[in-house]
């Protein structure tokens, strides 16, 4: 696979702890591996270009509600909530114990990617001997470790697997988070294809077979937007207008006089 377009990971780790396999401990740090590069836009006010902020507005009172007056509601039925305070939730949440527990080892390719959630780089912490040993063993055997981690306040099923000369941790989806395609009517009643058709299809697939290279794919929308940004910054510039004090000087003179007048009364 081509290495073009790969980004350098950030130096700072987001988590540190140990991989525990039975009685063996491998000290590791977690680094961000996935960087979302989707095109994002900020919402601006059309008439003055000022960025917009989100506010929590009470639906009934049509009023902005301050943080201290906000609680969480678990919707049991439509519009029916059980209220939770932060204390309630804190007590229920799993505590991060700085451990990646490996329960067993499996064949890496036996896991379907639909369960893959998000990958993190595992780096050795302090001592790299145990890390190197685990990595090499997994590489040689084509295996991956399955286990659990608590990140922040959520517990995830995870996979520890070798990737490109390093260990990578990939969080997995819970079984109940993945829909079963066979429950779709259209998929339930699929007919067996005819033999001649299948032969032809197999030929096409064989002809188009190749090596996987993710760098062949580009986000064309992102490229277009970047081109447009280039053009717009040269010509038609969009500047966020900040309240300019100097511009308002005449107004301030008028205001000063008015305030004086009001004070006299």
């Amino acid at each position, binding site marked *: 696979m081509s290495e073009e377009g790969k980004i350098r990971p950030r130096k700072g780790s987001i988590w540190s702890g140990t991989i525990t396999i039975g009685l063996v401990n491998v000290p590791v740090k977690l680094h961000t591996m996935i960087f979302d590069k989707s095109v994002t836009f900020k919402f601006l006010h059309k*008439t*003055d270009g*000022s960025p917009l902020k989100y*506010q929590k*507005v009470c639906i009934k*009172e*049509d*009023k*902005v509600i301050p943080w201290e007056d906000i609680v969480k509601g678990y919707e049991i039925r439509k519009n029916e909530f059980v209220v939770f305070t932060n204390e309630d939730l804190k007590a229920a949440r799993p505590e991060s114990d700085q451990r990646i527990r490996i329960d067993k080892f499996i064949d890496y390719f036996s896991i379907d990617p639909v369960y893959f959630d998000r990958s993190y780089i595992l780096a050795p912490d302090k001592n790299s001997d145990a890390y190197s040993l685990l990595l090499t063993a997994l590489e040689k055997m084509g295996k991956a470790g399955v286990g659990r981690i608590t990140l922040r306040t959520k517990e995830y099923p995870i996979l520890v697997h070798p990737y490109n000369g390093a260990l990578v941790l990939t969080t997995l989806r819970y079984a109940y988070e993945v829909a079963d395609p066979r429950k779709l009517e259209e998929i339930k009643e699929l007919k067996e294809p005819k033999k001649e058709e299948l032969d032809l299809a197999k030929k096409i697939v064989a002809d188009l077979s190749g090596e996987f290279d993710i760098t062949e794919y580009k986000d064309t929308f992102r490229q277009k937007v970047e081109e447009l940004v280039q053009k717009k910054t040269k010509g038609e510039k969009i500047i966020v*207008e900040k*309240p*300019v*004090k100097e*511009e*308002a*000087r*005449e*107004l*301030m003179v*008028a*205001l*000063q006089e*008015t*305030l004086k*007048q*009001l004070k006299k*009364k």
Partner: protein
Amino acid sequence: MSEKLTKVEFTNLDKVLYSDLKITKSQVIEYYINMAPKMLSVLSDRPIVLTRFPNGIDKEGFYEKDAPAGTPQWVKTFRRYSETAKREINYIVCNDVDTLIWLANLAALEIHMILCKVDSYEIPDLAVFDLDPKPPADTNEVTEVAVLLKEKLESLDLKSYVKTSGKKGLHILLPIIRGYTFKQTREFVQKIGEHLKDQTQLVVTERSEANTQGKVYVDYVQNSHGRTMICPYSLRATPHATVSMPLEWSDIKKGLNPEDFNLFNVTKIPGNPWEGMMENRQKLEES
């Protein structure tokens, strides 16, 4: 110095709000700053309703009853069920220069006020005669009716105050002691309107006749819960940036042109014909 003078953060000061006269938002703000002392004496402690024209008067404005999202904390508001809107409204209350400037910065060219104060929402403190001419009747016909009205009110020992609507009509106001209901003020205004009808063929008083050509409609229904009136010295969204201008009764005569009062000259007209109006609360005696 500017930072301490106002809490308002100005935006888009150069936006042209009146295209014919190239009046910018900055000029509108300056106008309202200058008029603040005269406006606040009437405007204070009243729920108000805005008509905003963020893209200038050529584009459709919008009527805003509720304090908009992003209303600063220091702006006073008043929450009350409105009969006309059939729901709770979080009204803005404009008691100081900062709020007035903030409104101007919102391009709230027109400021409409409710005929009562926040502390007694059900009880009006003003009775209003809204005189509106239907073409070919014009301001001339309205002045004729207004003078008859003023004389009738004088005969009842009532001192009335007059202003242009900023368009073709005139508003005649009676500051009243608090204690009457809207129903009572409405019936009072209706009764006087009917009396005028006996005196001149010019007047109609019922909504069904409101659009009769050549007549002056005395709208008594205006004296109702939640109804508003353009506030004195408010700008109007008219091509000439006219103002709802308080006048002396001696100015109310044939030839009066409401378009003579606009953003440019009103600030230079000295005095205030409505000075002390709100201290002159009167009883509505049986007529």
